[in-house]
């Protein structure tokens, strides 16, 4: 196939970017509107403006202050909870997935192939299927209303990331592992000092995806954390819905949502190089 002309390629990519960026831009515009104009845009009474007529920068402070029942306290609590849960989950997922991936890639043990297949099969299970059994399990353990049901499972690996780590580690020359053995390292030492530092591209992907998934997770915290002071940002955003499930202050919801999204966007920009490098390798080639 003849390659596309550069200007056409650029135009195509620009058009694609507009499609993907428009919802974000619409959020920005609505977040800066007055309550009346934002409500009208939401209900379709007014067209979508590309630029707010009179930007209301104060909407942001108001949104964060109004999150939860006490001014600012709800936001600060939710932010702290989100940071704690997300940090634990990212650390847990990276450590456990890389360790298990290493074991699947490098250690020889009976039943390795069968267990790997079984692990891959767990990827086919939708989260909703395991939600109730897990809830019952965690309730039995007395973990409801603690962050344990959100953080602890992360330390038992994630099938998809285990698969990615395994594929990547398979490409690491065996002689590096052997050299580390001669240098006096056991399997854990080899994983920590040699394998994990070499897996940076996969770790970047794993960390970014896990961060975004956990930071934006609504279902988990909603099911396991019930007190307002325990809620994470994703759940706290729900406080902008009125008692009938409708939206009174859509401009504030958009402002709070944007603030909530900000860490994900910043993280992606910071880890972009590693992230794209990892994706480009498909995590299957060293």
């Amino acid at each position: 196939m003849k390659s596309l002309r550069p200007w056409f390629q650029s135009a195509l990519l620009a058009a694609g970017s507009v499609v993907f960026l428009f919802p974000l831009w619409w959020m920005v515009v609505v977040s800066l509107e007055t309550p009346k104009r934002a409500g009208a845009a939401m209900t379709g009474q007014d067209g979508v403006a590309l630029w707010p007529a009179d930007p209301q920068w104060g909407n942001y402070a108001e949104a964060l202050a109004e999150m939860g029942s006490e001014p600012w306290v709800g936001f600060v609590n939710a932010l702290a909870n989100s940071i704690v849960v997300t940090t634990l989950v990212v650390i847990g997922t990276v450590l456990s997935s890389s360790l298990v991936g290493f074991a699947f890639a490098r250690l020889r043990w009976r039943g390795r192939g069968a267990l790997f297949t079984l692990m891959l099969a767990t990827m086919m299970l939708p989260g909703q299927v395991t939600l109730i059994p897990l809830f019952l399990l965690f309730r039995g353990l007395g973990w409801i209303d603690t962050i344990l049901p959100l953080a602890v499972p992360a330390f038992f690996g994630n099938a998809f990331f285990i698969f990615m780590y395994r594929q990547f580690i398979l490409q690491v020359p065996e002689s590096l592992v052997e050299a580390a053995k001669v240098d006096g390292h056991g399997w854990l030492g080899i994983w920590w000092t040699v394998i994990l530092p070499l897996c940076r591209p996969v770790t970047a992907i794993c960390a970014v995806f896990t961060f975004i998934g956990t930071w934006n997770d609504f279902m988990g915290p909603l099911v396991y954390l019930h007190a307002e002071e325990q809620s994470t940002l994703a759940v706290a955003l729900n406080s902008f819905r009125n008692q009938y499930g409708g939206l009174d202050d859509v401009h504030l919801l958009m402002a709070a949502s944007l603030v909530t999204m900000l860490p994900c966007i910043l993280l992606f920009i910071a880890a972009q190089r590693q992230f794209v490098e990892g994706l480009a390798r498909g995590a299957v080639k060293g």
Partner: protein
Amino acid sequence: MAEVILKSVGKVYPGGVRAVQGVDLHVRHGEFIVLVGPSGCGKSTTLRMVAGLEEISEGTISIGGRVVNDIAPSDRDIAMVFQNYALYPHMTVGRNMAFGLERRRRHGSLLRSLLSPAYAAERRAESARIQARVDEAASLLGLRPLLQRMPRELSGGQRQRVAVGRAIVRDPAVFLFDEPLSNLDAKLRGEMRTELRILHRRLGATMMYVTHDQEEAMGLADRIVVMKDGLVQQIGSPSELYDRPVNRFVASFIGTPTMNFIEGDVERDGNGLALRWPGGRITLPVGITLATARAAIGIRPDTLVPVADGPFRGTVQSIEFLGDRADVLVESSGARLNARVPTDSARAMREGESITLGMPGLVHIFDGEGQRAE
């Protein structure tokens, strides 16, 4: 320095594949021994068993008088240089070299260092000793300017040096080399071979080296172990292997160009024996005993010379000039003979012309089973 003794060592992989069988070898203090053979002959497996990277299925291996069959690689007092160097890509050259020693040093915790000034001082002194050893090895190999570089910033030859440096820093009883020069170009390989030889003399260390390149083996070794199909064929000095190969395999594997073989029927010749082949007949040296009806004579290419009257008449097929010498391929009654002759002699030859070759030098005689006949 230490002796390495292999007694009836064998390796059987799951599925019953025998990679190595019945290897008996005594590597002496300070000896440079080279294991050589074609791919799949078991030489690397043997070295890896010495290193502890492969389990030993049969027999025992001792290093420095201690049986090491069940001892971890790091506790065998060995250092290994790998074919692809195996430098840690995320560490600087200096860190790569110090890594093994740092690992041994780390027996205490940071907390202990903070709580006990004496302990902290001891650790600092140990760090200084490690650094001194790294500096010493780096100076020996000319690596000092490279200590802060990452492996990816080095050329193949420099990486190879770092790999050797990493081994030297450990000050092991035995150095193990697994085809360390095979990734280098021919010129660099020659240079590094010389450097390794000098290094061996300087360190006086016991070294075991694996290669498939017989020239490298001949150039480096005090003694060579020739292997084929997991079995040791012959152990001897380079000159022993060259002058008195025990079988046709060793005779053909050692030496460049390869030895010429003429096969024929054995017949009586007075009190002695003679070999007849379609192109001629030759009386075998007095005292040779052969139990088989068929036999072969082996002639090194450098012992074949153009003569006025000799046993091999044939046609010159090709002449390759190599500088001071030339390789001449001669077709004689269906047999192809390689002769390495002085360039002056080769200048007088023409491709397609007839030539007669004689062999005033050493001739090797092998029985029908390929074993040396004496």
